[in-house]
């Protein structure tokens, strides 16, 4: 049986860790053409949406489709070069490479806001993707909802 990790309380941009200390959530931005039309973009989004619940509590993510002005703005702001790309804490990390689970954890851990969050992420390295809440998580991230041009 896998160990049960202490839960976190979700408070928008921050989460409360088990010791009661507030920590910033890790910001993930996925730059896409359109996660509905483009399969590669869709699976880039899914790689984040399929992270297990304990990690979902520690991250905040959005899809930025280049088909709308907000998405173009974010692409420029993050200095995007190719689509799709995953940015973690403002760094372009996965450019036209759909990441493996462990690669995602390692890159998030490198950019964790503090030691405790980093340790928790590393402790979840063997957890693996969880497909149960993908659709719910994609909806929360606005995936596919702002992909029209204009």
């Amino acid at each position, binding site marked *: 049986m896998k160990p049960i990790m202490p839960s976190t309380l979700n408070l928008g941009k921050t989460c409360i860790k088990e010791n009661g200390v507030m920590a910033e959530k890790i910001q993930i931005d996925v730059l896409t*053409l*359109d*996660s*509905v*039309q*483009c*399969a*590669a973009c*869709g*699976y*880039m989004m*899914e*790689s984040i949406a*399929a992270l297990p619940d304990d990690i979902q509590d520690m991250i905040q993510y959005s899809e930025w489709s*280049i*088909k709308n002005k907000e998405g*173009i703005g974010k692409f420029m702001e993050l200095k995007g070069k*190719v*689509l*799709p790309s995953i940015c973690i804490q403002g760094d372009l990390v996965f*450019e*036209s*490479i*759909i*990441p*493996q*689970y*462990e690669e995602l954890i390692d890159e998030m851990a490198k950019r964790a806001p503090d030691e405790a969050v980093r340790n928790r992420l590393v402790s979840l390295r063997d957890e*693996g*993707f969880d*497909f149960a809440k*993908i*659709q719910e998580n994609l909806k929360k991230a606005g995936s*596919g909802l702002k*992909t*029209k*041009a204009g």
Partner: protein
Amino acid sequence: MAKQKFIDAVRGKRTASAPWVPYAGMHCAFVINEPADKYLQDPEILARGLVETAKKYKADGIPLIFDLSIEAHALGCELKWWPDNVPSVTTHPCSDKTPSEAGLQMPTKDSGRWPVIFEAARIAKPQLDELDCGLIGGLCGPLTLASHLAGVRIFTDVIKNPKFAAEVCEFAGRVGAISAQLYAEMGCDVIAIIDPVASQIRSATFQQFVTPNVEPAINAINGAGKTSTFFICGDATKVLKDVCELNTHGFAIDEQLNMNFVRDLAKEHGKGFGGNLKLTLALSLGLLSPREDAIVSLSAGGHIGYTFAPG
């Protein structure tokens, strides 16, 4: 319109001018003012949109349908339909088991939406022939279909669980061969193996999981006397040499690649090549002049094996 010119270009031959192929896809529904979900499920509407679009754009070739959920749907994956886009695959039957453990069976011409596509081709093909416009059948490539079947875990499994990944990709490759046979039976002139996510992996992974699993479809296409091509999206620079080494007649790429690099590699391997018009930057967003982009593409593409097409 000139179907033979298009076929010659995909086969890497010299053409008097570059053939023009709009990968219209859901734009065909827009042209006849129909919602995408209705368009993709009604053969008469689909055929009408296809023929109207071929006429409107004076196409030398046009895809019968550009929807990578067809195979997944025929295998039992659930879809989310959209009024302005292709459907999304929402369930992955191999997320925790192999295709054989999941009880997946090879599709037939009666599975999923294949009857709709057959009927649409039956209606549209004679009209397109009259217009001298080639018909393209587009099947879902092995890695994209494996992603639909297993979900995003497939990109981890190719490293951590290669036996499982190989089983899913091999199954997907055999499904692709059936799709190729079906499109050949419909009378498609050119059959494209469309594997967009194959650009999102490293070259070694491509050689291990994509190369062997496109072979069944390529053999089915070439064996039926049709023209084969491989479509890849995204920044495929790192795997483009692997694409050129496939046994297809040609390949097509998207707007993110450097056209001179693509042309030189295609020429070195004797392949036809196409795509690269800036679909997003010019045609969708208007950030570049579509006219200037077209001139640049035509200049770089040249007259040997080049198809003028969106990326």
